């Protein structure tokens, strides 16, 4: 066995050029082949790529899809985001546990099947959903979950679980997935018809500076969430000193409730590749990288194929479209389960074969990005917009949307609404219009922008969706009157605790502390002073955290405190007789009661 491991690791490392920068590919391959990257494998990899063993351990221990302990041949990862829970996820979880006879985090005694929870897998429109190895299974129920286990136990082949195919390219031979696109509203930018090469041809007829000027004129802002002006980012990168430059497409769609990039990757990958190629031309890069989240591995072969088609058509490779000297190609870098890698500098760390820790800024990626070279990182949707801007002109684009937010935006809407799915809408529509559009009734709250966004209530329904009012990277979660907004907030805090990289103190420690006090209040043990405590703690986490994750991680608490304060106020109780309601004397005495075998004389139950 160990000689098998040794030769396999050697071969995997050699296939990756014994390059430590390709650590992600190496550890992913070892994980896939052996079900884990165990201690021995770590030592072997370290030797092959000339790093210290602990550096390999550092990477393996960081990503959720990698493991140092053996996992089953089949790993079931049930999505445990709030939408899945609302759609019956708990019953599915119980059925899976019951049927397999194991709990989450465990592997069956025969070593065949492992059961795990995983945060949002980008399938909220068809929840509850799970990943079974790389396959996606959707619309789960307790019955279908039991049926899946029966089938797996007989054939152990996740691919055979796909009984019906989804629409569009989900039915493509290289995808063959049961995922549905759920495109509810097509707009002109993303879903308009396109012929590969249209935007690129126009771009190549201009100088790179003119391309950047057009992107600036369109006033396009990044679609990932932060909303930085794209043209300005490109200009900085082009102007930064250095010989090599890189274009990175952030396809690590991990914000809970977002699934619009999944649909772009399935139906509009050409538009995205085209935008990346235009970016390459504009900034003077010859390499593009798509960082694809591990949850979307089922799309990888299809995307590789689409890239090969573009190479054949002369849209990638050397002297693209006959333009002498313009060489550009794109490769796919797989992630391994880490929300933080959607943060651009963490994404770069991951591409470099490191833990997904964000980097200190300055320098910014535009100056020193991947391999310390000038790098543009944009979202999937942003690149699509670029291709369309070059094709149709910046004026065409800027006429849509609102003053500070031009163009259209893809929304992924899910939760308590009759028409969940992807909507392409012009910026500037009100929340009320949006709720009407998706068939939401009796709405209590809307979470705009995912866990890192804000929870808003009725008073905000006339606000508009745009960068300067209610911003969103695409995630919209709808909650009706039957929902408990503080339970939702608590769920989001679980998410941030799980996904924090742990680098900086406020995020690593502050989030568990926020969760502790929020849950205490939810349990009816809060005091009025706890509201100020949460506000103060939340502000410290927001102000002092190092990256965007920590700077937004307190929002579930802070936005519910601001917009649903009455709920908190009903729950907290002033201290009576000088006793603190939060202090549970019986819980505090439990250990000593057990050890001494008798109850306290003063505090009997």
């Amino acid at each position, binding site marked *: 066995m160990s000689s098998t491991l040794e030769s396999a690791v050697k071969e995997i490392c050699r296939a990756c050029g014994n390059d430590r920068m390709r650590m992600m590919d190496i550890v992913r391959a070892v994980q896939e082949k052996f079900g884990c990257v165990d*201690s021995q494998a770590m*030592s072997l990899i370290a030797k092959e790529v000339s790093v*210290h*063993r*602990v*550096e390999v*351990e*550092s990477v393996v*221990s*960081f990503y959720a899809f990698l493991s140092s302990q053996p996992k089953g041949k089949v790993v079931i990862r049930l999505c445990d985001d709030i939408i899945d829970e609302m759609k019956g996820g708990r019953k599915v979880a119980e059925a899976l546990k019951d049927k397999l006879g194991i709990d989450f985090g465990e592997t069956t005694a025969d070593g065949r099947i492992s059961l795990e929870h995983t945060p949002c897998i980008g399938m909220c429109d068809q929840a509850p959903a799970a990943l079974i190895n790389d396959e996606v299974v959707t619309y789960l129920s307790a019955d279908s979950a039991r049926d899946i286990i029966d089938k797996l136990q007989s054939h152990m082949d996740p691919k055979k679980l796909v009984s019906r195919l989804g629409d569009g390219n989900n039915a493509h031979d290289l995808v063959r997935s049961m995922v549905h696109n759920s495109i509810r509203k097509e707009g002109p930018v993303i879903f308009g018809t396109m012929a590969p090469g249209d935007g690129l041809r126009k771009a190549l007829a201009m100088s790179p500076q003119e391309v950047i000027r057009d992107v600036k004129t369109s006033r396009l802002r990044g679609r990932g969430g932060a909303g930085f002006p794209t043209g300005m980012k490109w200009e900085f990168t082009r102007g930064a000193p250095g010989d090599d430059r890189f274009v990175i497409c952030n396809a690590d769609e991990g914000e809970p409730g977002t699934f619009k990039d999944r649909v772009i990757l399935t139906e509009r990958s050409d538009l995205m590749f085209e935008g990346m190629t235009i970016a390459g031309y504009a900034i003077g890069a010859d390499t593009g990288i798509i960082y694809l989240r591990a949850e979307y591995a089922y799309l990888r072969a299809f995307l590789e194929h689409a890239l090969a088609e573009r190479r054949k058509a002369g849209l990638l490779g050397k002297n693209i479209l006959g333009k002498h000297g313009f060489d550009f190609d794109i490769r796919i870098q797989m992630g391994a389960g*880490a929300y*933080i890698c959607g943060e651009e500098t963490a994404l770069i760390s991951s591409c470099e074969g490191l*833990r997904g820790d964000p980097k*200190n800024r*300055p320098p910014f990626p535009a100056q020193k990005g991947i391999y310390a070279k000038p790098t543009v990182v944009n979202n999937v949707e942003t690149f699509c917009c670029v291709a369309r801007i070059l094709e149709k002109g910046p004026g065409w684009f800027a006429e849509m949307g609102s003053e500070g937010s031009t163009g259209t935006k893809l929304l992924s809407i899910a939760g308590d609404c009759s028409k969940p799915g992807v909507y392409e809408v012009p910026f500037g529509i009100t929340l009320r219009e949006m709720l009407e559009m998706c068939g939401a009734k009796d709405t209590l709250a809307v979470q705009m922008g995912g866990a890192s966004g804000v929870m808003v209530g009725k008073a905000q329904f006339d606000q508009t969706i745009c960068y300067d009012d209610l911003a969103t990277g695409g995630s919209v979660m709808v909650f009706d009157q039957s929902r408990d907004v503080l339970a939702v907030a608590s769920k989001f805090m679980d998410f941030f*605790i*799980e*996904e*924090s*990289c*742990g*680098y*900086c*103190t*406020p995020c*690593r*420690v*502050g989030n*568990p*502390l926020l969760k*502790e006090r929020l849950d205490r209040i939810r349990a009816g043990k809060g005091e009025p002073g706890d509201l100020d*405590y949460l506000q*103060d*703690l939340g*502000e*410290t986490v927001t*102000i*002092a*955290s*190092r990256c965007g994750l920590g700077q937004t991680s307190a929002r579930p608490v802070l936005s519910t405190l601001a917009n649903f304060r009455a709920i908190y106020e009903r729950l907290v109780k002033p201290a009576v007789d000088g006793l603190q309601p939060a202090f549970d004397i019986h819980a505090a005495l439990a250990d000593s009661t057990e050890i001494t075998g008798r109850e306290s004389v003063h505090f009997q139950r």
Partner: protein
Amino acid sequence: MSDTITLTIDGRKIQGEPGQTILEAAEAAGVYIPRLCAFEGLVPHGSCRVCTVMVNGRPQAACTQPIAEGMLVENDTAQILAIRRNIIDMLFVEGNHFCMFCEKSGNCELQALAYRFGITAPKYPYLFPSRDVDASHPDIFIDRNRCVLCGRCVRASRDLDGKNVFEFVGRGPEKRVAVNAEARLVDTDIDVTDKALDVCPVGALLKKRVGYAVPVGRRLYDHKRIGSDIEQPATTK
């Protein structure tokens, strides 16, 4: 272009050199910015966030942010002091810190910061994590109960000793300092003379058999508060 940069810290103009961080420029001008992960001679880490300052109204870590002409830095404001105090509180409740019998007491930077900020007890609830101790090495031990994840030992071993004995593993609340071996410190190439052993701000990485050598009253922070060696006496300001 002049080779000095002028910036303002809490209303006071100071001069710095190009390439300096806010923390370095402030220190050279006699202004102490509290810090924990920053250590002279090691690359800035920016992880503890104790040195958070406001720069032109935006929060930045003073240890990683380079100075720029005309920068307005707020270091000694009620808001910043409250944030730092909260962060120090967090570090106490995150680990298991028992100052009264810790060898590092009196020489501990975390403890000294708490005294400087007037913290007698943390306002956050203790998290009481279960952490391990590695006493496998004959001359050195690691007590992870006291570790604040500042990464000084990681950087010192890598950059000063050229060894990479330490590295971070895990993420979020599970993050910890691991050693470059299957499990135990004794199986690494660490040596008792390594510089990595001299940088720990707390009592997490210590040499054996030298604890409590300095009597109470003569320890580093027994009479002067942390940062006082940097701060200019008020009269010369």
